[in-house]
């Protein structure tokens, strides 16, 4: 149903191919391994510098070392800082320490991207690399993509009116250079490459950490069978996703769109019948 009503909707596999590119380059993405993130925010800075993202306030948020708060129109990489009180195995509360989680968040470049599906102008589009990019010369600021994104990534720029988000450095990719954030990351917490390769590497990394006793390590967003068909950017986390401000089980809203249209059709028919009945009932 979904696919015959709306071609491309919920098709699996290579998003560039299902968007009509013939023989596209391999799908590129990010693997953000938060276990080696040191919270230096070089990615945030590099992103702003390269993409001319305006300053959006250096605020004291009271949220550990976080002063950008979350992803938005003017924050395309956001480093989250979480301080947790932890007690070592078998230890007493007196020996409690602090575990400091840091994680650099970014647009997931979803396989089934809600922002792209709902964009009425065609401003949001799928690139040949399988990424999702806004064409700012077309965006009319309708704002539909903003509440459509299940991760809270894309947002409207104040005083500009248009929607902005990570482009996975489309300009750099086009000339074979890796995105600014990955380039600058001093610990390789942000890794860029063909998605297939990244997925394999991530799997090995989880195994390695599990063997070393870091049983909390888990991948987030790498599974092509999840609600968004897997992210082009995925993560290795050390706690539940919601601790980092990520949705635990995101689903692309357009998955339910065929059912919504059916409900609309039924309601429209009901409306017409109700009015007709009222006229019939009232007679002359």
């Amino acid at each position, binding site marked *: 149903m979904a696919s015959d*009503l*709306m071609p491309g909707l919920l098709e699996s596999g290579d998003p560039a191919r299902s968007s009509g590119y013939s023989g596209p380059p391999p799908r590129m993405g990010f693997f953000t391994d938060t*276990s*080696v993130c040191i919270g230096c925010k070089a990615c945030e800075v590099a992103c702003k510098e390269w993409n001319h993202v305006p300053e959006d306030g250096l605020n004291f*948020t009271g949220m550990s070392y976080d002063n950008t708060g979350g992803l*938005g129109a003017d924050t395309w990489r956001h480093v989250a800082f979480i301080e947790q009180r*932890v007690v*070592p195995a078998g230890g007493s509360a007196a020996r409690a320490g602090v*575990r400091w989680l840091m994680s650099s968040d970014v647009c997931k470049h979803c396989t089934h991207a*809600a922002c792209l*599906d*709902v*964009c*009425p*102008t*065609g*401003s949001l589009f799928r690139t040949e690399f399988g990424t999702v990019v806004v064409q700012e010369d077309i*965006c*009319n*600021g*309708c*704002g539909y993509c*903003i*509440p459509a994104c299940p991760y*809270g990534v894309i*947002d*409207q720029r104040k005083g500009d*009116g248009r929607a902005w988000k990570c482009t996975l450095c489309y300009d750099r990719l086009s000339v074979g250079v890796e995105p600014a954030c990955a380039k600058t990351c001093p610990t*390789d917490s942000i*890794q860029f490459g063909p998605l297939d390769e990244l997925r394999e590497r991530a799997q090995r990394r989880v195994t*390695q*950490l599990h063997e070393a*006793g*870091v049983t*909390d390590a888990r991948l987030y967003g790498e599974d092509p069978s999840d609600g968004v068909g897997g992210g082009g950017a995925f993560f290795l986390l050390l*706690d*539940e996703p*919601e*601790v980092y*401000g990520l*949705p635990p*089980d995101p689903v692309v*809203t*357009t998955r*339910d*769109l065929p059912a*919504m*249209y059916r*409900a*609309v059709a*039924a309601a*429209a028919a*009901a*409306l*017409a019948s*109700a*009015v007709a009945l*009222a*006229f019939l009932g*009232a007679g002359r």
Partner: protein
Amino acid sequence: MSGVTRQGVQGVRPGREAVSGVQMGAKKRPERRAGRRDGEQPVVGEATFQSYYGKPIINKPVWESPDIPGYLFLGGTAGASSVVAALAQVTGRPSLGRAAKVTSTVTAALSGFALVHDLGRPGRFLNMLRAFKPTSPMSMGSWLLGAYAPLSAAASFSALTGRLPRVGSAATAGAAALGPGVATYTAALISNTAVPAWHEGYRYMPFVFAASACSSAAGMGLVAARPAETGPVRVLGIGAAALEGLLMRRMRRSMGVAGEAFQESHEAHRFEIGAAALSVAGIALAALGRRSRVASAAGGASMVAGSALERFAIFEAGMASAENPRYTVVPQRTRLEQR
């Protein structure tokens, strides 16, 4: 420091292979509680959940009130009025027909204005017709409105001037054919988002909108048409206003955790109470005030206002559910745990 010696490379840092977090060993699960800010008290049935400093997961819509709830209401009134207009015309009720046609044209124009006014770049509103995208209810709606508004305007023109009666009839029929879609597609538009209190209501939302549209269109008929011709809209208004409240309750109950946003948001709660009160008043006045033009008109106006407040309630509940991570995290976590 790392360096190259005769024995080979020494002291190389592990880089991305570094194993961190081992010393802590198996850690106790963090307390399952909400990271709420400003000591806000949880509402009914609080399930424990974790969050990032209580920050929302999704980005709140940038749509503004009264533009967007107004647009939902005006579009609904327009669409249903076109159906009323066509039936009034074929059953020989010229005054009701005229009133409904003019209502539909004026509300359609105002809804278009509200929509363009809410754009971040209003000058680029024509870009809406740059693509035809079935995956975007806003795109489909733009095309629908683009076809509907001129038909409604042509119908009004003919009804008011008495010119081009054939064209007027055809336009009336055309507007009536598109009207039900115009009145209900907006339900898919707002449901097709990650906003919990909108998305979770997608099965009922179009029916709530249909009832609300009928009630406001009928209300306008009661206000503006000659009393002798208002029989059908009186029946329609009474039925629709009653159904609107019932459907709204059904929708809220069907939404699980997200339905609680209708209570948690003070605005939504107040709008809903206002809508219910106005609907009851509208029903009573329309039913009892059959003989009095003033009572009927007051009843009609109450129905219109009640219908409008219903849209504002839905709008505000959605905003509240987007702002609180609970509405996003709890249902998703529950879903994962049941898997």
